[in-house]
């Protein structure tokens, strides 16, 4: 009970301080509009925020709070990186890109920077990584602890340690960018190709074509996507060895098809909104064909929403693949991939109390997944905000 009581006491204290804050503010500024029109909820919010900041500062100075310090430092480092990148973007580049960077929030510039770094790591993984992704390094022990501290079983040559087979984890983490991100990207592209083709065709042709595909998509969407993916992966895992096709290829197709249903919905909706426009009617009455309508009239007007959706879909596909891999039915060994790494290294989290750096390896792999999706989401959020702002 005691934590609940202390929380209650703290809240009451904050409530009292907030009232005093507003009252004193009104009195000392002779009712300036800022304090006069301040709702009590806002005053409460200010004080609550202040208290949270103080609490955070106190925690930061505690000896035991290693992870909290890492988190704060990491957050600050990301913020500074995003800020520097934005300054860079404001100075370098074409006039258009400079203008873009001027009105960009920090989250978006951080997102763009992160995506660039990931793309770089994915493309040049073979150059950056010190070892091969499935290279079992001779004469090196398995299960070297991350952190490079020999006292607890680390090795400075392997800053992130080695896995149970003696493969360098840093290299596998870098190759993970290539495999996990690359496969997710390919899958998303495939999903978009399928979804957009049928979505636009439905919007233009309407009638029975639209009916058949829309109903089919309704049914497919009634099965939760991860569940459906798991079901199909079960079947694929039987077929794959018989046909001699890697399971990963099946996974790409399965997830692409499942995800294309969502893309179809959006493409169809966007298409429908464009098809009712008078310029489409004008083109139809001119006698233009289907190809001209889709490629010249609809597609150019659908790029903005589709691009935003591409970002969101990529995140979704990426997370689905990571989850499948984490559950053991996704990307298959010997390819290095983040989801599998988390699963294999997860038990090290339990040693964090004794040596914080030991928990770093699984958290870094999981964090690598999270960081990219956060970055993409930040950029998409900014894009959507921009386009909605421009409309009004």
């Amino acid at each position, binding site marked *: 009970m005691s934590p609940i009581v202390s929380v209650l006491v703290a809240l009451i204290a904050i409530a009292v301080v907030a009232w005093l804050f507003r009252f004193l503010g009104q009195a000392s500024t002779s009712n300036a509009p800022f304090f006069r029109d301040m709702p009590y909820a806002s005053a409460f919010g200010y004080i609550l925020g202040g208290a949270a900041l103080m609490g955070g500062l106190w925690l930061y100075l505690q000896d035991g709070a290693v992870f909290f310090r890492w988190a704060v430092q990491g957050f600050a480092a990301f913020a500074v990186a995003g800020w520097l990148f934005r300054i860079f973007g404001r100075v370098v580049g074409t006039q258009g890109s400079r203008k873009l960077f001027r009105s960009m929030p920090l989250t978006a510039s951080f997102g763009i920077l992160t995506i660039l770094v990931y793309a770089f790591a994915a493309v040049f993984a073979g150059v950056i990584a010190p070892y091969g992704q499935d290279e079992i390094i001779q004469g090196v022990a398995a299960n070297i602890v991350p952190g490079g501290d020999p006292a607890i079983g680390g090795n400075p040559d392997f800053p992130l340690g080695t896995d149970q087979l003696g493969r360098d984890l840093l290299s596998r983490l870098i190759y993970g960018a290539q495999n996990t991100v690359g496969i997710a990207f390919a899958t998303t592209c495939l999903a978009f190709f399928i979804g957009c083709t049928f979505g636009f065709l439905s919007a233009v042709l309407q009638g029975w074509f639209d009916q058949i595909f829309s109903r089919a998509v309704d*049914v497919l969407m*009634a099965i*939760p996507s991860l569940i459906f993916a798991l*079901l199909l992966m079960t079947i694929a895992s039987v077929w794959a060895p018989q046909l001699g096709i890697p399971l990963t290829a099946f996974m790409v197709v399965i997830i692409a098809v499942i995800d294309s249903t969502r893309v179809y919905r959006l493409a169809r909706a966007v298409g429908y909104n464009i098809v009712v426009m008078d310029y489409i009617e004008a083109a139809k009455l001119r006698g233009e064909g289907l190809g001209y309508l889709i490629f010249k009239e609809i597609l150019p007007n659908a790029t903005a929403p589709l691009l935003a959706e591409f970002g969101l879909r990529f995140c979704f596909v990426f997370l689905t693949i990571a989850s499948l891999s984490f559950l053991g039915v996704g990307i298959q060994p010997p390819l290095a991939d983040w989801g599998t790494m988390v699963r294999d290294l997860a038990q090290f989290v339990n040693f964090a109390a004794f040596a914080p750096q030991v928990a770093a390896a699984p958290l870094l792999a999981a964090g690598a997944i999270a960081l990219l999706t956060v970055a993409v989401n930040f950029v998409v959020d900014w894009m959507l905000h921009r386009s909605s702002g421009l409309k009004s």
Partner: protein
Amino acid sequence: MGTVTRIILQRLALGLLTLLVVSVVIFTAVNLLPGDFAQSILGQGATPEAVAAIRQDLGLDQHPVTRYFQWLGGAVQGDLGTSFASANFAAFAGSDANANMGTVASTIAPRFENTMFLAGVTAAIAVPLAVFLGVLAALYRETVFDRAANIFTLSSISSPEFFLAYILILLLAVLNPILPSLSNIFDGMSFSERLERTLLPALTLTLVVTAHMMRMTRAAIINLLASPYIEMARLKGINPLRVIVKHALPNALAPIINVIALNLAYLITGVVVVETVFVYPGIGQLFVDSVKLRDIPVVQACCLLFASAYILLNLTADIMSILSNPRLRHPK
């Protein structure tokens, strides 16, 4: 018959039809499997007699359409068939494969209950929290609070469930041992003990679901606050609280209910990963294990169960928004 009743009956029929088609899809997908289950259960060295016996036992020698209707008929009555894993075990043990312990229904039932408990705890925390925070973010939009909430929710939506799960384990089980990191739940546990062991997975799910729900609630409310009748209410000099309660809320109900139902449906997917991380004996973990074991009847049954829950929740959202629409409730 009223318009509303007619529309709702239509939706119910449509939901039932969807479920039926989904069951066909699931059944067909499973029947795409090559070769013979009996063979794969018993391995390469099995005698043809043993294979035939298993085939007959599992009804694999019948036509797929017959098997579908048998399966569906059974499913409607709560009989979801025999688990291959149990059958396999039974075959080796030499006992009767149709013994009660081997049925899918008996495997699923206790786990289903556990999952419902987990989902219930999550919903009890997440729904009020998310709606409250979402409304708050909409009212104080473009403030520091809103921006911080935006970053926080985006981050937690973007993170894979297992990342959040391990972070919570790290914080609340390893560094500060407040809650157990494994959720081994068994019969005859006291409620508070059970709650304690469910709390960590529930919190993980809460983080994800709350973020989604809060963003959607915020968007729905902002959309609503921009409508001319809200401006009209303000221009009538109505105080802000009354504008929210009297003018915004009745119209916000439909979108908010929609948001809640959609996110509870989302829980279904989240449950699979989170139960695996915490070794929570729910239906999600059973599903993943069965997938790995290729225990087809259990996979089928779980799929059907997940899909039914999903369809049911979407249907609820649909019907609720019809019910709360004054244009339909009071036709011309």
